[in-house]
């Protein structure tokens, strides 16, 4: 059985997702020792050092460009900008992955340990991270980081998803796609805000439905995260140091992590530290 990592990379005109995917791929290969493939579009591919792409990625898989109008406000420290959020192609991973067992990660998820290697042989055919761990502790974890809505189902984090390619996981990704295509209807049923399409929500609801409308507790490890208002300040020999956004009436504080996988939502700060990271 083949194991491998898959990353989506579609540049949106503001963020260089191609370069982010290269960083994430190099780290994943180093720490998990498995091949990594990228799903991208021709336009994004035309903007990269194609030789490096071909060297790093096991397979480069092309899809038509995203057609979504989804947007979001993305911060880089205190500065923010409304940017395109091209996240609608995720359900196609089941069809496109070249692996029997796939770890799907966001391209801002920096794998700095071999923790996820423990899940390749896990008996569960679909595993998603079930918890958001903020780098500062519980203080910044909001209600809607734990549930899709005030009364709704548990929120899973599609930042890390591991699945075995079979008919049952096909059903899961088909359902994710169905929820994406009928997002407002599911918003009515599951009481979540539909202002912005989120894979986390579609994945959570699909999992909840296929688990039999109950909460099943077998998950990937929590996603340790830094928000986009935080900044990856420096990288030194595997130690990541962040400048954490000030809480009420406080100054910025530094925090460092070593040997832990981190979801760094401030994408531009990853790019600023590209050389040191890889």
């Amino acid at each position, binding site marked *: 059985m083949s194991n491998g990592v898959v990353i989506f990379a579609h540049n949106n005109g503001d963020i260089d997702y191609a370069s982010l995917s290269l960083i994430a791929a190099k780290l994943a290969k180093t720490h998990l020792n498995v091949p990594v493939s990228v799903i991208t579009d021709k336009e994004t591919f035309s903007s990269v050092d194609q030789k490096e792409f071909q060297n790093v990625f096991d397979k480069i898989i092309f899809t038509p460009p995203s057609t979504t109008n989804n947007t979001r406000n993305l911060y880089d420290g205190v500065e923010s900008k409304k940017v395109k959020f091209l996240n609608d192609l995720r359900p196609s991973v089941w069809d496109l992955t070249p692996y029997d067992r796939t770890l799907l990660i966001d391209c801002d998820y920096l794998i700095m340990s071999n923790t996820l290697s423990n899940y390749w042989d896990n008996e569960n055919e679909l595993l998603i991270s079930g918890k958001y761990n903020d780098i500062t502790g519980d203080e910044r974890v909001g*209600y809607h980081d734990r*549930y899709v809505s*005030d*009364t*709704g*189902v*548990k929120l899973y984090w599609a930042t890390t998803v591991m699945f075995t390619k079979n008919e049952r996981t096909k059903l899961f990704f088909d359902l994710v796609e169905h929820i994406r295509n009928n997002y407002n209807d599911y918003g009515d*049923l*599951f009481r979540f805000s539909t202002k912005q399409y989120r894979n986390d929500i579609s994945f959570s609801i699909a999992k*909840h439905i296929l688990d*039999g*409308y*109950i*909460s099943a507790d077998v998950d990937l490890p929590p996603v340790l995260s830094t928000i986009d208002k935080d900044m990856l300040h420096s990288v030194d020999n595997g130690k990541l140091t962040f400048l954490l956004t000030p809480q009420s009436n406080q100054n910025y504080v530094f925090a460092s992590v070593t040997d832990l996988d981190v979801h760094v939502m401030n994408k531009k700060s990853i790019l600023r530290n590209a050389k040191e990271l890889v």
Partner: protein
Amino acid sequence: MNFGYLIVVAEHNEIEYAKLAYALALSIKNTQKQGYDKVALVIDNKDLLEDIESKWVFDHIIEWDQETFWDGRSWMDELTPFEHTVCLDVDMLFTRDYSHWIDYFIDNCELYVANKAYTYRGDIVTNDYYRKCFTANGLPNLYSFFTFFAKNSELATEFFKLGRSIIKNPKEYSNLFLSKYKPKVLGTDEAFSLAAKILDITDDIAYPMEFPRVVHMKGAVQNFPSPSPNVTDKVGFYLNTNGEIKIGNYQQTDIVHYTEKELLKDSDIRLLEEIAWKIN
């Protein structure tokens, strides 16, 4: 094996407890294996059962009017017709077969009192909004809504005897043992918890187990960001023709303690009846 569920109700001006007992008994008949589905009803006035169509769901109907309201439950050890009993709160519904757990209780316990509850989303209730008295006074967190006991157990007899004494003398016991936060009403939960503490038997009668799993539908313990007295102010309660219950987006597979006494409509009871009639 001589096992059964015991339900104790009394006449009330506003709430039709007999009807709630009927719904619970129907749900037991609809979900439990034969031999594990016996129900005894203790009621202060048998006339209250007049409108009930299928009285056969009560294997025993015991008329008893020595206590009013919920105080009757503290006499469960003397009232039960069974060798092994689970006494339940009346505002509950069963959703699946739990007979394997009854086997466990019969083989291993003289007395076992529920010591946790769950939200409709399957989280363990940790909020003590309704249980300040327990927290402040260091009482064990017992719930009388599911109490298993063996009839000839000395431990159970001593426990229930003290429980009755506490309920009969709330001021004295509150002054002595609950001075840090006196409950407005010293109910069965407080009495059982205090009895367990005084007798120092909590570890024997309320050790951690995966059962009973009871979904407590009181609004303030559901971990809503803005609490509401009633869960159904926030989410729907759905009973389908198979007797399955969904609350909001969650299928319920545990015992549902719905607490809102007006929640069940006649049409819901009709649904439960129709299932029972098909099975029996």
